[in-house]
């Protein structure tokens, strides 16, 4: 497909520019001499930030408005407590359908990238979230039925509430002192709609179109306030 060819070429160019045309496959793996100390789980910092993908969607699609803010508590080198709060609204069919609401996710991440840098330069985390969206949807409709007659009506359903669980994989790197960025992949699982709604639920803020399984991508920016540097055993 052309888009993948384009993406492949672009990333290949970046690959050469950023890495100054290094051939990484020819490099011998360096032996890692550092050892992770047995750590205490204690509050070592806090990060605030946002996801740029919802902002990008808002910028590119005039029918959608989204934002998402994030906070992370760093517990030692390995654990992060995470809280995401966001809002999303969209319109379809020239405004005949609208959906808006807020969502939050709460959970924890476990960092696998501890040997190099100990949360100082990079993180590769897997995590779990419990997510809840509170929203409303509205539809003005005309259904054409040439035999029995057309049906015209309007539906507004408020205080709809849906929860789901999410597994995340996140890669973050420190790009400047206290500034972090990186992509996140979210694997969302929704078990049921739990609503006896007149209009079938089609979009959920923070989740997307209501398939039971979704993979969402994000790109996060963070500012870190460091309380305590975690020790690295040499």
């Amino acid at each position: 497909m052309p888009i993948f060819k384009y993406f492949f070429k672009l990333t290949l160019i970046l690959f050469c520019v950023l890495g100054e045309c290094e051939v990484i496959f020819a490099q011998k793996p360096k032996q890692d001499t550092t050892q992770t100390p047995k750590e205490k789980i204690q509050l070592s910092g806090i990060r605030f930030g946002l996801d740029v993908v919802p902002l990008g969607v808002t910028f590119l699609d005039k029918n959608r408005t989204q934002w998402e803010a994030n906070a992370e508590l760093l517990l030692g080198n390995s654990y992060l407590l995470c809280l995401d709060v966001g809002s999303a609204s969209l319109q379809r069919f020239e405004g005949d359908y609208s959906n808006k609401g807020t969502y939050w996710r709460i959970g924890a991440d476990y960092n696998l990238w501890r040997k190099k840098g100990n949360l100082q330069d990079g993180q590769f985390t897997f995590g779990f979230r419990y997510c809840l969206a509170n929203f409303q949807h509205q539809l003005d409709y005309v259904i054409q039925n040439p035999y029995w007659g057309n049906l015209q009506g309007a539906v507004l359903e408020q205080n709809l509430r849906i929860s789901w669980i999410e597994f995340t994989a996140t890669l973050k790197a420190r790009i400047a002192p206290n500034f972090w960025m990186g992509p996140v992949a979210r694997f969302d699982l929704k078990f049921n709609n739990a609503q006896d709604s007149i209009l079938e639920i089609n979009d959920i803020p923070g989740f997307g179109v209501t398939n039971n399984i979704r993979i969402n991508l994000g790109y996060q920016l963070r500012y870190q306030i460091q309380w305590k540097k975690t020790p690295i055993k040499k």
Partner: protein
Amino acid sequence: MPFVMKYILFGGLIGIILLMNTSCKRKCTSDLKNIIKVQFYNKETLRLDTVVFERIQGLGVDSILYTAKDSLVNTYQLPASDGQDMIDFVFTRKEGSLLKGYTLRLTYKRQLTINTPGCGAFNRIENLQVPFSDFDSVVVINPFLDNTSNANIQIFF
């Protein structure tokens, strides 16, 4: 910053931006009609049969769906109503010199949806039932109207 990290960070960012730009446009590709397909079977041979009716029409509707001329088929396609959960169809048949009407009453559950990409509002119809019929033997074989099945109702006549 490690080299691989740079690659993933910037490659990932560009990838996500490209994906946002090329997100699929929603086009309506479905034929959004709720059609109830009724097949007639010979009750003795249990084989698909053609039963000719003088007319078939919905109760309370002036328009005739089928006349004797176009009822030389074994599957009748009856439209569901978007505004009612219960509809009656009357099948009028010439028996000798008399016209006899057979009523087929159908009930179903409607769910308003916009799930079909780009097509706007649509009633998804499920739980099709036949609570009353003048036909001797009526079987609902597919209670969900999805336009892909050959038949929803079999009538043994």
